[in-house]
C-alpha cells in the first residue's frame, strides 16, 4: 500500500443532505440521506465507504464530487471550498474529479461510439485537437486492457466487464486527481469482478489517484482500500484503517456486518450475529444512536444523544458510547 500523503486532497466537513419527497407545491416527507459526515481522501489514498442500501454511501460520493448541492456542511477540494464555486471554475474543477458507475449497461451512451465518449472529457474542455484526442483515447483503451481498435464500436457490442473498463477509461481520460467508484464491480460475475479490482488497484497506484470506493461487498473493500468508513442510515458508525476495522471491528454494526458476510473457509465463520428486523425508515430515524433499535448491546443511554465519532485505539474512530465495554 503506498503511504498516503498527510493532507487530504478532498475533505468533507459535517456534510449532510436532505431529500424532500413531494411535488412542486406539496410539502412531502424530508428524508435525511446523509447526516453530518466528515470524510477526507488524500492523494494516492483509497477510502472504502461500506454500508447497506439506504446508508447514504452513494449520496456521499456525489456530494463530494459536487454533483449535488449539500444541505449542510462543506466540501473542499485541494483547499478550495466547493459550495460557492460556480460557472467557469466549477467546470474547470470537474476535470480534476470523476466518477465510475455500477450498472455497466446504463453507464455508456448507447447512441455514440465508445471512442467519442472517452474523448468527451477532453472535447468538453477543448484540450488538444482531434488527433491528440484520438491518440489519448487509444492510450487509455490500452491502459484499461482493451484493443484501441474498439474505439469505433458501440457499447452494445461489449460485455459487462469490458463496459466497466470503458467507463474507467472515460473517467481517467481527462487526468483527474480524485475518482469516486460507486459499486463498480457489484453487477459483475466473480471472475470479471476480480479483473476490474486488479485494474483499479494498478491505476490507483500508477496515477496516484485519490480513490473513494463505495461498495456493500466487504471482502473487495478489504482488499482494495487503505482506510474504511462504515455507514448506517446516513451516519458514520466506524472509521479507520482497513486492517484495524476488519480484524477487530469495534462498532456492533460493523461486527454484525462482517459476521454476516459468507466466508469460504469454515474456520473463518465466527459465531454469526443475526440482526433482528429491518433498518428503520430514513424519514423518521430513531433518536440518539440510529442503530440502537437493532443493537444487541443497546442501553437507554444510547437513545439520548447522537454518539460522537471518538478515537478508539490509534488509527480508528467509533460512534458508540459502549465501544470500550463490548470490545
Amino acid at each position: 500500500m503506498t503511504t498516503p500523503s498527510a493532507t487530504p486532497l478532498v475533505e468533507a466537513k459535517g456534510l449532510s443532505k436532505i431529500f424532500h419527497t413531494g411535488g412542486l407545491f406539496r410539502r412531502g416527507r424530508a428524508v435525511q440521506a446523509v447526516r453530518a459526515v466528515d470524510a477526507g481522501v488524500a492523494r494516492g489514498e483509497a477510502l472504502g465507504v461500506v454500508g447497506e442500501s439506504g446508508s447514504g454511501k452513494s449520496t456521499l460520493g456525489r456530494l463530494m464530487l459536487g454533483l449535488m448541492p449539500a444541505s449542510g456542511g462543506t466540501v473542499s477540494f485541494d483547499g478550495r471550498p466547493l459550495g460557492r464555486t460556480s460557472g467557469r471554475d466549477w467546470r474547470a474543477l470537474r476535470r480534476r474529479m470523476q466518477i465510475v458507475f455500477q450498472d455497466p449497461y446504463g453507464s455508456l451512451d448507447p447512441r455514440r461510439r465508445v471512442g467519442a465518449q472517452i474523448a468527451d472529457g477532453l472535447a468538453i474542455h477543448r484540450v488538444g485537437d482531434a488527433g491528440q484526442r484520438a491518440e489519448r483515447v487509444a492510450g487509455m483503451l490500452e491502459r484499461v486492457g482493451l484493443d484501441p481498435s474498439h474505439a469505433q464500436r458501440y457499447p452494445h457490442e461489449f460485455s459487462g466487464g469490458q463496459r466497466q473498463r470503458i467507463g474507467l477509461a472515460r473517467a481517467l481520460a481527462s487526468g483527474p486527481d480524485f475518482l469516486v467508484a460507486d459499486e463498480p464491480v457489484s453487477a459483475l460475475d466473480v471472475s470479471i469482478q476480480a479483473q476490474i479490482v486488479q485494474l483499479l488497484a494498478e491505476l490507483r497506484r500508477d496515477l496516484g489517484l485519490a480513490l473513494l470506493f463505495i461498495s456493500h461487498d466487504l471482502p473487495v473493500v478489504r482488499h482494495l482500500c487503505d482506510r474504511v468508513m462504515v455507514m448506517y442510515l446516513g451516519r458514520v458508525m466506524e472509521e479507520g484503517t482497513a486492517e484495524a476495522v476488519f480484524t477487530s471491528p469495534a462498532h456492533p454494526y460493523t461486527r454484525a456486518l462482517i459476521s454476516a458476510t459468507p466466508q469460504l473457509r469454515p474456520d473463518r465463520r465466527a459465531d454469526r450475529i443475526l440482526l433482528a428486523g429491518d433498518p428503520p425508515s430514513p424519514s423518521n430515524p430513531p433518536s440518539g444512536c440510529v442503530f440502537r433499535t437493532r443493537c444487541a448491546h443497546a442501553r437507554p443511554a444510547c437513545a439520548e444523544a447522537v454518539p460522537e465519532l471518538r478515537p478508539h485505539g490509534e488509527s480508528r474512530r467509533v460512534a458508540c458510547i459502549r465501544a470500550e465495554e463490548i470490545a
Partner: protein
Amino acid sequence: MKRLWIPGALVAAVILLALLAPWLGLADPVKQDIAQRLAGPMPGSPLGRDEFGRDVLSRLIWGARTSLGVAFAAAAIAGILGTMLGLVGGWFRGIGELLTVRSMDIILCFPPVLLALLVVTLLGPGAGTLILVLSVLYLPGFARVTYAEVLSARSHDYVEAVRALGAPTGRILLRTVLPNIAGPVLVQLSLAVAAAVVLESGLSFLGLGVVPPAPSWGLMIRGARATMEQSPLLLLWPCAALSLTILAMNLLCDGLRDAVDPRTPAARPRPRLIDRMLPGMLPPTERTGAVLDLQGLTVEIATPRGRIRPVEDVSFSVRPGETMAIVGESGSGKSVTATALMGLLPPAARPVAGAVWLGERDLLRLDEPALRALRGGAMAMVFQDPMSSLNPVHRVGDQVAEAIRAHRTMTAKAARAEALGLFRRVGIADPERRLDAWPHELSGGMRQRVMIAMALANRPGLLIADEPTTALDVTVQAQILELLAELQRETGTAMIFITHSLGVVAEIADRVTVMYAGQVVEQGDAAAVFAAPLHPYTRALLAATPDGDGQPAGIPGVVPQPHAFPTGCRFAPRCSHAVAACEAAPVMLDETQGGRLTRCIRWTELANGAECAA
C-alpha cells in the same frame, strides 16, 4: 424490419406522387369545365370529373400535395416546439415543468374543433391558419412524450457521467439526451402526421380548412357528399386515398415503434413441431430414492439465429433434507435448469433429452394439468428479485392464501389463518397487520420471507431457490439463509440452491454442482470440492473470490455465447492448463472413486501434481 418495408414503401409512394404532381402532366386541378360536370371516366380524366367539371385524378394528387404538405408542416412545427418544451420541462423540474408541461393541459382542455374554429375565424381560413391550428393541437402530444422520455433518460448513469465531465446543460440536452429520445419522438412525429391528415380533411370537410378552389381531400369529400345521388363514385376516390395513406402511416408508426422500443422481445417464439418427447423413447433408468433425480437434461431454444442448447446433459439428484447448490456465472444455464424442472420454460424453449424424476414421476413427460398439480405442491420455487415477484395490486396475505387454496380446497378464512401461521413461521414481525400489507409497503427481506412462506404453503418435498438472496443486503441475506436452513432442518425438504456466490455455497450447501457454459463441470460434497477442487474452472473461481487474504485473480476472457460453444472443453479458451487435446473433442464427465464428478481430461494429472491454485 419486414413490417417496416411495406408501409414505408406505400407512404414514400404517396409522398413522391404528391411532390411530383407538377411534372406528371396532369390536367389543371382548378380549371373548370361546367359542361363536363359530374362526367364519368373519359379520355384525359380516368376518374371522371367533379361537380365543377374539374379532373378528379389531378385534384386527388394535388389534394395529396395540400393535405400532406399541411400535415407534415404542422407535425414538424409541433415536433420541434413540443420536443424543446419537453426537454426543458423534463430537465428543469419545478418551475420549468410547470411552464412547459402543465401549460399543455390548457390546450388539451379545448375541444379540438372549437380551437380550429376560433383560430380560423380569427385569422381567416387557409392553409397557413390550418398549419397553425394543427401544430397547436399536436404540441401537447410531443411535449408529454419528450417530457416522459427525458425523465427516464435522466435516470441513466451516462447522463450523470457527462454531467460529471463538466458538460454544460445545453450540450447534455442536445448531444446526449436528444439522440436517446429520438426514437419515441420520431414515432410521435409519424403519429402526428397521420392524425393531422385526418383532422385536416375533417376541418376542410366543415369548411374551416383549405380555401377552395385549392384541392384537398376533405374538400373533395365535402363536394362529393352533396352529389352523392348523382355520382356516388366521386365520394369513393378521396375516401380511399385518405384511408389508404393513413393506414400506411399507422402501420409505419407501429413498425417504427417496434424497431425503436427495445423491450419488445426480438425472438418470435415458434413452437417446435414435436410436442413432448414420446414416452418410452429413452431406456428407463433406475432410481435411487432421491427426492429429485435429474438425468442428462438438455434444453433447446429456437432463436432467430438458429437453435441453441443453454443446458446440456445436466444430471444431479437431491435426497430429502439435503441442499444441492448449483453455482456458476451468468450464462452458465443454472436458471434455465431450474425453470425447466418447474415446467415454466418460455414457449420457444423445449427439453429435448434426459429425464427429471420427482419421486415416481418423470416431470418431462407429464401433461400440463398433472405438472400443474405438482407446482407449488410437491415442489415449489423461490425467485431472485423479491421486488417484482409479488403482484403489486394484491395484498401479500391473499397471494399466500391463493397458493394454499390452489392445491387444497378450504374456505378463504381457513386459508388466511394458515397463511398467518406461515407468516409467523418465516419470522415476519406483527403478522396480523402484515397479512393485509401491499407488496410495496414491505422491505426486500420481508418480501422474500413472504415468498418463502408462499413456497412452503403446501409442504413441498422439493424447494428450488433461484438466487434468493442475491438482491438482498448482506445482513438480510444472512437472516434468509439462516431461515432456509432452519426450515429445512425442521421439514426435511430437499433444496436446490442456485447462486453465483461461492461464499453462500460454503455456508449452506451439502453438495455442490459447478456449471459452466451449460454443462456440469464438477460435482461432489461441498467441503471436498472447496478443499481440493478438481476442475480448473472451480479452482479459478475459488482463486477469484476475495476472502481477506491473497490477491483475487481474475479469469481472463469471457464466457462463450450459446451460439458459439467451442466443440471441445468449453473452458479451454480461458483455462491456463489447456492443451491441444482439450479442444479436440467434447469432454465427458469422469467419476472419481470418491463419487465426485469432473469434466476435464487432465484432472488426474492436475490433482496428483497438486499444483497450487494457478
